[in-house]
């Protein structure tokens, strides 16, 4: 088991080293997420004011759009430099490589969310400091569920034609349950009279989906990445 975590950690470190040098994915993803928020504000703001209860939806749409971009880019980089084959040829467990890739993506998206969440709160009057613990749990669990499936699919798509258009088409329908839980839970925290038990319930469902998605992804990564 310690071998599993060591391999995963090596993959994370490799990805982070590349990213720290180029900063390409963090910057593009962040800028894209901010643009999404901006476009939403054009669509819904009337007479200088945003309607209530839209912050949760906008936040999660921005996260999912930006997440797709980041996933596509991390694996595109591996493909471009032809390093994915080398990574898969390494004498390591495939699930460990998957876990490392997933953790790297989570770190990236976490960085983006650190800026994105306060921005959405500022622009759409969302009380993010009312229940910080629950909000962070929702964000982590939601991003994990989304990224778990996304990492698997982005990895598989490396070998497929028209991968850039296919990733969102395949990913969004499957991750709908995670998105619903994330949006509903966050909306319960953001509404005028916050509903804590409801948020807790959505967190529970979200974590259940996370467990299912991560287990199934770890399970399928090995056969789909074997030639």
């Amino acid at each position, binding site marked *: 088991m310690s071998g599993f975590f060591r391999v995963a950690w090596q993959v994370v470190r490799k990805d982070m080293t590349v990213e720290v040098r180029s900063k390409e994915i963090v910057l593009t993803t962040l800028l894209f997420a901010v643009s999404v928020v901006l476009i939403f504000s054009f669509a819904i703001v009337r007479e200088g004011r945003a309607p209530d209860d839209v912050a949760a939806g906008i936040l999660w749409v921005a996260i999912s759009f930006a997440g797709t971009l980041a996933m596509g880019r991390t694996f595109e980089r591996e493909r471009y430099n032809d390093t994915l084959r080398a990574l898969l040829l390494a004498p390591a467990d495939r699930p460990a490589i998957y876990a490392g890739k997933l953790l790297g993506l989570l770190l990236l998206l976490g960085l983006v969310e650190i800026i994105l969440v306060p921005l959405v709160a500022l622009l759409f009057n969302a009380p993010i400091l009312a229940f910080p613990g629950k909000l962070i749990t929702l964000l982590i669990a939601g991003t994990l569920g989304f990224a778990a499936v996304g990492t698997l699919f982005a990895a598989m798509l490396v070998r497929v034609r028209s991968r850039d258009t296919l990733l969102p088409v395949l990913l969004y329908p499957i991750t709908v349950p995670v998105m619903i839980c994330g949006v509903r839970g966050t909306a319960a925290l953001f509404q005028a009279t916050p509903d804590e038990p409801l948020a807790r319930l959505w967190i529970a469902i979200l974590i259940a989906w996370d467990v*299912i998605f991560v*287990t199934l992804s770890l399970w399928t990564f090995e056969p789909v990445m074997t030639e």
Partner: protein
Amino acid sequence: MRHWLRVCVLILALGAAAPALALQPQPPKEFVPVDEVPPGEQIPAINMVAAAYGFVWVAVLGYVWSIARRLKHVESELSDLESRRK
């Protein structure tokens, strides 16, 4: 052996999901019977039934036709290829 272990983990995961689902996050919504819908909104039921059955027939027949066409195409191509090999 490892497959079975993973199957067990998955079943456990599904079991973990069950209590979360057993709770009800949404109160039941109000049911609006047909006769309370404003009269202008009402559409004769026979149109609906006819449309539903019509769609089913058209879709099924269309699909059967499309499969038959594709099968014919593939079979001619296959016999073509096989005759070329000889």
